[in-house]
């Protein structure tokens, strides 16, 4: 289904923030906002749900810790409990201080890398991915607000002009 969207351009992040608040107040659904840099508080103004990335990271960290413990318990204690320099390899707990550096590093490794991969997957980022910005200026010095049109083209146009947009385009999507 071909639908029409309206693209409103802004050249200042403060103006953009006010515009977002006005559009939200007028109960229009903002499809997307393209910015050249992070605008502090934009997610809150748009009413986006908070990220759950930190929670996934915590869980990945727990997985990493488990991997480290199970691995070293198997290798050092169960499979071949050699006497290496007098270290007590009778039980995991007895030799645990020696394993802590690895437990720590693997926890961090899993937490960090799996979280980054989760981020890439969730935000659909990968090499050779086709860039999605609707206008090249949005990576340099312009902010773009995209709103879907439902037979209210003129009303939206007026509203957006009111919010200080420097340019308004209507495109097929």
């Amino acid at each position, binding site marked *: 289904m071909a639908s029409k969207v309206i693209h409103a351009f802004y050249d200042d992040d403060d103006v953009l923030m006010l515009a977002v608040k006005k559009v939200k107040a007028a109960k229009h659904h903002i499809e997307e906002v393209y910015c050249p840099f992070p605008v502090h508080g934009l997610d809150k103004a748009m009413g986006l749900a908070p990220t759950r990335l930190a929670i996934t990271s915590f869980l990945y960290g727990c997985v990493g810790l488990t991997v480290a413990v199970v691995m070293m318990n198997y290798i050092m204690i169960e499979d071949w409990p050699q006497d290496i320099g007098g270290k007590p390899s009778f039980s995991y707990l007895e030799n645990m*201080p020696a394993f802590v550096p690895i437990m720590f590093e693997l926890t961090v490794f899993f937490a960090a890398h799996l979280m980054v991969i989760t981020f890439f997957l969730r935000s659909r980022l990968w090499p050779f991915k086709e860039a999605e910005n609707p206008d090249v200026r949005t990576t340099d010095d312009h902010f773009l607000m995209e709103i879907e049109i439902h037979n209210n083209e003129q009303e939206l146009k007026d509203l957006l002009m009111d919010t200080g947009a420097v340019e308004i385009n209507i495109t097929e999507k």
Partner: protein
Amino acid sequence: MYTFSNRLKIASFILMAVGVLGIGIGFMAAPSTVEEAKAIVAAQGDGHGDAHAVVAEGHGADAQHGEAHDASHDEHLLHQLQNKPWSALYVAAFFFMMISLGVLAFYAIQRAAQAGWSPLLFRVMEGITAYLVPGGIAVFIILALSVAHMNHLFVWMDADVVANDKLLLGKAGYLNGPFFLIRAAIFLGGWMLYREYSRKLSLAQDESNDDANFKLNFRISAAFLVFYLITESIMSWDWIMSVDPHWFSTLFGWYIFASMFVSGITVIALVTIYLKSKGYLPDVNDSHIHDLAKFMFGISIFWTYLWFSQFMLIWYSNIPEEVTYFVSRIADYKLPFFGMVALNFLFPLLLLMNSEFKRVNWFVVMTGVVILFGHYLDIYTAIMPATVGDQWSIGIPEISSVLFFLGMFIFFVFRALSKAPLQPKRNPFIEESKHFHY
């Protein structure tokens, strides 16, 4: 302006009175002769006594010096039991002094770093550091009494022991009574001087027309941090490490620093939350508490890092001259020694990891109380194994000492808080601090 509520004042007096009473009972109950000491241990009839019987038997089998050893063992036991009320007093005195000193370090860092979020809390920090003067004097008195041979906290102060101990003879150039007290006086004097002067400048800045006081405060804070870093390290060798004069560890100063720093930050958070709940800090918001909780979280992990680094390096290489420190702690102090790692690490790690929880006051208070208890145990397991050995317990002398110094702490801190407006007026960063938002 904060007014010291009568209820709190009375509570602090009650704490002090109960503390003094308990401390007195503790000193009264300490044995004065070998026979009394033996009777106390026999009356306990618990694990401690049994362990001694086994040890005594083992020695008895060694017939050549069995008699002499038993006698010296009894003497040793007497000293341990006599040390109990002294150690309890010393641990509590040091613990509360250390909180105040940790806050002072945090305060100096906030000034030297020109932090934009914390000026709103400067008066709270200045109030807590007000305890440094009476608390420092209390610690100094205990140290001076030790040098005067009123107790056996520091074994190197005993001339007979030193004379028969080559290691201690070698250290006598550093570890001797007069030099020890001179050092203590210099450390405490320097810290108190900075505290009083910085407080004066901070109050003068409120009334002045320019930022000269603020700038001077910035410079002396930076200078104090250099002084503090050196003196804190030496202080921890003197006042804590030297109870085990045969043992040494290079990162010990940092380790004690982390302990006092996290306790200090925790107390800032607790006092701030208390004052805010009474409506005295209207401009302090969730984000300030959040920042303090982040510091509590981060420094707790830093403390654990140092605790583990010290423990693991010594455990791994297992050199007899170093490892006895941990052998005695693990043998006799298993629960407090490992329990404090749970209290100081696992608890704050899991409770303060969530960003939302750091803004919930009762959560921060609960974690803060656990952290403070954990760091009391930290100082406890640093001092007690050397002074009372396996005769430790947390009973009347220990709890009373804590209550006494807690009462003193509350009294001096809240009295200082009531002496100046709780919000600095002309701090250049005060506007930023009021609007601090995370």
